[in-house]
């Protein structure tokens, strides 16, 4: 009978809505030993996170490595391979003091030469984010002794401390990779790191088995003896495997199944905006400002007013997330502007804006142009909306909401690899929705959306084609300003301007939900070293 109830609840759970998450449960005192089985969504192919930004590789491999710095739950930098640091020359140089006594998994000593090699020969060549953000401004890396690393920049560079964790800059061993091709090196599937766990075996397509690194430089850590990364591509199967006791930890839970898991005392859940593939993401509607009709801010404002963003939160995300209240994620607390006047859902006002812009309601339900500059009178107000197939529900709501004010929306689902060239290279779209991940610093994930230099074929940059000299100047100034309290007002000014210009509509912030078995605790959901301090009752 109990099983029947579980099955019924599960089947119902596939189609039910969920409620916002409760607080993370209190943790027990740590104990040594035990194993943790983690479900991961894809075979990473290799285990070298320094040569890729692939979420699959980073999810599976970050526990094997360390960055110079870590990050706490607020996203602030913490010591990791570097025990301390100083900012010099107003942010044009950063000096790091490395920990003493750190060894690689093969017993070799970790030194500053490893850091210099990793950046110069691996990260700045193959890690897309590090190369794109740092490659043009880094003047050089000095290593005056084995425990000191100095980064010299051509100009003050603000975001560096947010770019040195195991996600953005994992440090690899020079003595392993030197002289070889980092992309095809045998060590990519049999890696040597400094991290809390080392690789025991990698069965392709099936699992990666990690064992405790007894020589880990953080005393007493890790607690677990073993971690098994089990590859389970289907998200529903992952949940079933958790319920069946086959796995202990999930990186994400589909919205419809969250209520069901939350109601079960055998599991714990926590929300986080961190993900190795991209953090602090906002689902964002882009307007193609090259289109004549969409150049009119009244039409853009009307669309923003017609979208009920609460409905996106409840019907698409099942409550997992929050309505975006500013162009910068609320998770970057120091840069997120509060109290902005973003257009709120108001269908009547949307209709008034459309009328004022010359889009009139006549016989048909769809509006037509009457005196719109550059548009032939009688033209129907029809726009296309490009989206990944996984974002189909955003499209459905978009069509429903805009249809109610007389705008016809033509949905065009495109695979990610097709979507990007269509939007950024061919610019063959009217509107689209993109999950823009702000990253740990606005300089990494926000600048690309608004700066005019970011208009071009490079994917997931300035999709709107937005140009504003003042915004460009403010971004440039913020990038050169190291002190956070001086950067905050600059980003506030940027957000005030773009909220008026509306090149985008910021819909919802989309954190993900981790779930794990209640007999385990100590997870750091906000970092790739998520199980460094985890422990499980036997």
């Amino acid at each position, binding site marked *: 009978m109990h099983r029947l109830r579980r099955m019924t609840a599960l089947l119902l759970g596939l189609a039910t809505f969920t409620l916002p998450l409760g607080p993370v449960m209190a943790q027990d005192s740590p104990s040594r030993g035990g194993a943790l089985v983690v479900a991961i969504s894809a075979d990473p*192919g290799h285990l070298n996170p320094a040569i890729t930004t*692939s*979420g699959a590789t980073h999810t599976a491999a970050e526990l094997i490595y360390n960055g110079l710095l870590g990050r706490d739950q607020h996203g602030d930098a913490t010591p990791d391979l570097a025990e301390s640091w100083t900012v010099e020359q107003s942010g044009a140089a950063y000096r790091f003091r490395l920990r003493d006594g750190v060894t690689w998994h093969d017993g070799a000593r970790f030194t500053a030469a490893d850091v210099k090699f990793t950046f110069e020969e691996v990260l700045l060549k193959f890690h897309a984010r590090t190369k794109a953000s740092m490659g043009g401004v880094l003047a050089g890396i000095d290593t005056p002794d084995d425990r000191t690393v100095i980064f010299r920049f051509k100009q003050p560079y603000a975001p560096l401390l947010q770019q040195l964790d195991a996600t953005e800059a994992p440090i690899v061993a020079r003595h392993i990779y030197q002289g070889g091709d980092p*992309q095809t090196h045998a060590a990519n599937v049999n890696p040597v790191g400094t991290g809390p766990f080392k690789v025991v075996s990698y*069965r392709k*397509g099936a699992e990666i088995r990690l064992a405790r690194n007894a020589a880990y430089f953080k005393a007493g850590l890790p607690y677990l003896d073993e971690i098994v990364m*089990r590859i389970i591509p289907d998200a529903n199967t992952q949940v079933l495997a958790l319920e*069946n006791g086959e796995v202990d930890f999930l990186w994400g839970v589909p919205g419809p199944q969250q209520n069901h898991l939350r109601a079960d005392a055998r599991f714990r859940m926590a929300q986080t905006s961190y993900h190795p593939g991209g953090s602090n993401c906002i689902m964002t509607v882009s307007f193609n400002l090259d289109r004549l009709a969409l150049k009119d801010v009244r039409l853009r404002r009307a669309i923003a007013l017609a979208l009920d963003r609460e409905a996106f939160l409840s019907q698409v995300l099942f409550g997992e997330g929050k309505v975006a209240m500013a162009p910068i994620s609320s998770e970057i607390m120091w840069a997120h502007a509060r109290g902005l006047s973003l257009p709120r859902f108001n269908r009547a006002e949307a209709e008034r804006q459309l009328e004022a812009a010359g889009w009139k309601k006549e016989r048909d339900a769809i509006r037509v142009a009457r005196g719109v500059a550059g548009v032939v009178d009688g033209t129907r107000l029809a726009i296309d909306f490009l989206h990944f197939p996984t974002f189909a529900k955003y499209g459905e709501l978009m069509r429903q909401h805009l249809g109610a004010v007389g705008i016809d929306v033509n949905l065009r689902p495109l695979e990610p690899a097709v979507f990007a*060239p269509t939007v950024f290279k061919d610019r063959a779209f009217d509107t689209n929705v993109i999950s823009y991940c702000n990253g740990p610093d606005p300089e990494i994930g926000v600048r690309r959306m608004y700066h005019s230099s970011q208009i071009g074929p490079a994917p*997931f940059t300035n999709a709107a084609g937005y140009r504003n000299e003042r915004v460009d100047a403010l971004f440039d100034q913020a990038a050169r300003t190291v002190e956070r309290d001086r950067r905050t007002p600059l980003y506030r000014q940027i957000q005030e301007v773009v909220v008026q210009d509306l090149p985008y509509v910021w819909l919802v912030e989309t954190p993900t939900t981790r779930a794990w078995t209640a007999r385990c605790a100590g997870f750091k959901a906000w970092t790739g070293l998520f199980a460094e301090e985890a422990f499980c009752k036997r």
Partner: protein
Amino acid sequence: MTAQYLLRRLIQVLPVAAGIVLILFVLVHTAPGDPVLALAGEHGDAAYYAFMRHRFGLDRPLPEQLAVYVGRVVRGDLGLSYVHGRPVARVIAERVPATLLLTGTALALSSLAGVALGVWAACRRDRSVDLTVRAGALVAHALPPFWLAQVAAITLALGTGLFPVQGLTDARQALTGWRYLVDVVHHLALPVLVLAAGELALMTRLTRTGLLEALRMDYAQTARAKGLSERRVVYHALRNALLPLVTVVGGRAGMMCTGAVLVETVFAWPGVGQLMLSSIQTRDIPVLLGIFLLVSVTVVVVNLVTDLTYAWLDPLVRYE
């Protein structure tokens, strides 16, 4: 059937394989989607994407890429995987045993059980057994494997607690020897059941129909008139009824590879199907081409085996 015939058929495989390579190469390369973007994600700059495109040779004209690829294939080299950074042949070979185990077991199970059920139903025509088997076969044939897999996982695994829902082995223990074999069979049960269900239904219906038709033939009536038992008559008729099934089983070999994509994905079975799906998502073109080539050649070879089996089963069939 002579050795010359066999040799001629084997040689015929070569132009077919060459045609397959050409068509697949053009199809995969002209399909929308940028492998570099899939690999690099969304934060790279233009220089990075150009660097990676050059590294993979994707900046060269398509005919040149094709010439390079064909040259490699002729030498037995399927290239390097973009995602795995290792030889494609090795990447695929690592997954073949799991897929062979899954599809081979499902094919054998569905063939044997399908024939048995078909004979059982035909021998009890229009009785409750026949009606039940026919209805069951109809339903099983109509169910989409993806949906059936989800339901099987929820009911038979989670519901009874008797089966695991994912993987080839138990993640919690690294077993060896006969314990490992038992563990694999335990994990194999549900995916095989789901994959075999549709095939089983088809085989059952074909066997029943073929046998009923054969039992109405003159030779069957003659056999009965001569006093042979019904069991002997069925035995003789069955051999003729099975001939069309050989074609069906042979034709299903390729389908089993592609059909396994869904089942392997739902049950996290580490086979070629799962690799194919992830390679499509990441636009890992060398791996995709390698898999398509493998499946195509498998179908060609299985067709050849099917033709040869015909001659063995039917003395009237001769090859020259």
